[in-house]
């Protein structure tokens, strides 16, 4: 019986201690968390843009993130999530293109080089462009 008692207590103790430890970690993360990135910040940034979208639009997408930046894909997915039911394609081969940029102002030279003409700046790094590429 002592073996059984030890087995049960050891298993339960490790399980409960692990759960408690993880909970403390989560509380600590939660109290320190800043909302610079994530769904809420994207919903906020794109709220005006979404209102201006034609229904069921199909948009191109361009970001000023470096190509190999791991946040590139997540920012694209968040943009798509925020703008649904519009379809956002991960390239600029569409008539309308949403620009997601992080600098104070978009680099117009780069836009022109890609045949993109700014149509409306929604602020917070969100710009609607027209693709004039043939």
């Amino acid at each position, binding site marked *: 019986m002592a073996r059984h008692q030890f087995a049960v207590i050891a*298993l339960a103790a490790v399980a409960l201690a692990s759960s408690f430890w993880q909970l403390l970690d989560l509380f600590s993360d939660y109290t320190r968390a800043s909302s610079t990135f994530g769904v809420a910040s994207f919903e906020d940034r794109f709220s005006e843009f979404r209102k201006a979208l034609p229904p069921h639009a199909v948009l191109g997408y361009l970001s000023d993130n470096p190509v190999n930046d791991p946040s590139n894909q997540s920012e694209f997915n968040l943009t798509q*999530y925020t703008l649904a039911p519009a379809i956002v*394609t991960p390239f600029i081969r569409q008539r309308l293109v949403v620009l997601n940029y992080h600098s104070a102002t978009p680099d117009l030279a780069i836009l022109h080089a890609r045949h993109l003409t700014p149509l409306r700046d929604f602020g917070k790094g969100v710009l609607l462009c027209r693709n004039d590429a043939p």
Partner: protein
Amino acid sequence: MTFLCIALIWLTGFSIARFLFPAAPRWSLHSVFLFSLGTGLGMGTASCLYFICLALFGPSPLILAGFGAILAGAAILGGMTAKSRGVTLEWAAGPVTPAYLTWLVAAAAAMAVAMFVVLSLEKPQGEWDAWSIWNLKARFLFRGGEDWKNALSIQIPSSHPDYPLLLPSVVALCWTLGRAESVSVPIAVAFLFTLGACGLLISSLGILRGKTSALLAGIVVLAASSFIQLGAMQYADLPMSFYILATLALLCLQDRFPRDLRFSFAAGLAAGVAPWAKNEGWLFLAAVLLARLIAILRFESRAVLGPQFLRFAAGALTPVAVVAFFKFHFAPPNDLLAQKPAELAAHIALFGRWIITLEGLAKIILVLGGFLLPIVLMLGLYWFLVRFQVEARDRTALATVLLALGLMLTGEFAVYVVFPPDIITQLNVSLERLVMQLWPSGLLAFFLAANAPEIVAVPTHVAAKSQKRKPRGVAPKPAQPSMRLN
């Protein structure tokens, strides 16, 4: 309104479960089993109904509400008026359970709920897969109107357009009927699935192995932070885990109560919904059928094969038909399966891919569940001290669970070796989730095989009395000489 909708979905599921396994309306282990099973049955039914209405009649809230009311009304009427018959599910006889174990389960449950709440407050829209796939599709279904099929557009490859719609449909259903896109819906759905999986594990082990083993398994599953996180992050792996556990637990109960074939029907129902939760559900369906076939041929009379498989097929028929309708009429081809045979052959020939996958699996097993010490070592210690004792009547059940889980792992291993072009990224983002899908069922198998621990000294006459207690209703299969596995 949205919460009313979720409550109604759960009540519908509970009523279906109660219609299948009626019991006296009182707080009992039987009721806990039905409460838990009802979560998955309700979500599966509501999700299939939503998708069929959308596919056949378009996005009409009125038609949806009409069919929903008829289905829910019929289920609730059937469930609530069902007379108690057949099996009554009660705690299996076993050693006396100390009261503190119940308090420890309550503590584990409280910490799990706190963890779920904190994570949901921090990320109310869930993690990557939630907003890249599941909730994104729900938004397309709800916001898209006549263009709801854009949810399956190949122009958004990152949303995996061929993925099934259990979660998106049930979330969109609540949004449609509640007329609001409330962030609380996916959270509540995820919470119910998490709670349901834990409740199902505890109640089914309680019926099969007794209170002590059930409560201990409950502590371990509730304390697995990565399992709770999977739920709070609104990933579809948790519903998948629920349906795997429900199927296997119901098949175990089938073996305990061999004359009552409703368990096979309900197992078929749960297994049929699995491919509606995730594509791995097809693999599970094949694995569980093969496992069951082998287990019955090895340990049972062949005469039980036909009736059990017929009931299982009858249960699985409707959900599988819905998934097949989705796959053949709406879903684009799967990106992994769309690769050329020559590429796949080249993957198989690369020995490094086998090693990487094995290595990944070994690493995941060591950190499984997010415990302070590797849980496999702790379970190993538990086995060393308590030992396995498989009763003869549980051999078929245990063989079914172990074979099904083994086949699932083998199948997933093969998928990793054969399909993904970038195997390392694929392993990093998905392997732990896939293993966690099997976690509650693994615990079911472990505690079903393990001896029921004796931790309270009981006077001989009291122990004898407790052993003589017989369950009411249809008698379970009597215990026969057991097989001790030391």
